[in-house]
């Protein structure tokens, strides 16, 4: 097991991650021994919304974690394939920006996403608490997604 995956599993045992699991905010979609590092599947709870799932699966690529930021995209856990763009979370403001399959289907437009930070140095200041740092854990990314999926923007967008 490499240093990146060792640290990830340490973070999965942290009170911050476990509190999210106990609160029903998120959880692993796989047993530890079925994870094919650096890919990890995690679900995140979403607020109740007509014709929408109450939780979304995400495929995280954790290459170089936590020195490098994660990158993630919505994942169809039944088909084990990227989620159809028509089923991505919808909103009218921030949710529409972050969950934008028209931008990328393999990443989220977020300051904590490895793919999105390229070319967005201005986010370093504006989104200081989300701009990925090597001291961060996966919980920073999960809280960001969970907040959006339970926001007024998502529920009414």
């Amino acid at each position, binding site marked *: 097991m490499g240093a990146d995956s060792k640290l990830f599993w340490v973070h999965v045992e942290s*009170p911050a991650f476990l*509190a999210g699991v106990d609160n029903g905010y998120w959880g692993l979609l796989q047993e530890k021994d079925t994870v094919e590092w650096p890919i990890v599947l995690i679900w995140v709870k979403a607020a109740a919304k007509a014709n929408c799932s109450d939780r979304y699966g995400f495929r995280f690529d954790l290459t170089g974690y936590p020195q490098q930021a994660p990158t993630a995209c919505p994942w169809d856990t039944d088909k084990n394939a990227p989620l159809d763009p028509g089923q991505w979370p919808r909103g009218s*403001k921030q949710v529409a*920006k972050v969950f934008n399959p028209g931008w990328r289907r393999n990443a989220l437009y977020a300051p904590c996403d490895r793919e999105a930070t390229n070319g967005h140095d*201005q*986010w370093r200041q504006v989104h*200081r*608490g989300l701009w990925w740092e090597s001291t961060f854990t996966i919980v920073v990314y999960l809280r960001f997604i969970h907040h959006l999926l339970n926001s007024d923007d998502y529920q*009414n967008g």
Partner: protein
Amino acid sequence: MESEKRLVQVYVHGEGSREPKLVKVPEDATLKEVAAAAGCHLERVEELFIGRQDEDEPMNHEHPLHTAGVGHRHHIHCHRCRKIHALVLYNGVQKEQEFSPTVRLERVLRWATHEFHLQGHDAADMALFLPGELTPLDGDVHVGSLASFPDCRVSFTLAVPALVNG
């Protein structure tokens, strides 16, 4: 025998950290023992406020977990302040309110948007920030985690978080 006692885990929040500690204690441990296991101001543990998450009244330190209604993976808060004085600034106007240290910021935010007469989307878009910070505070953080004894107060700014854009 002591070694055969069933163990439970309890999230313990307190001063100085936004994240809780997860302590493992015997299921018949008293609240005082849980606080001690979490390292909560051991020199004055008898004087600590110990309360359940989002509840205003302190619990009896000598009560075992089950008597206090604290179960496996429940959240409690230990603090030297019995009340936290919260000050919220919005558009140049300041409102103040006292909260139990156990109260999560989502309740402080609801109180603040109500006090400033914000409704609907205007209220839903708001978040609490520490002065000078650009990162919105998570609604699950306990207000007591942001205040220290003997000051027992914390200041917030109420604002809309910057959108991810550009």
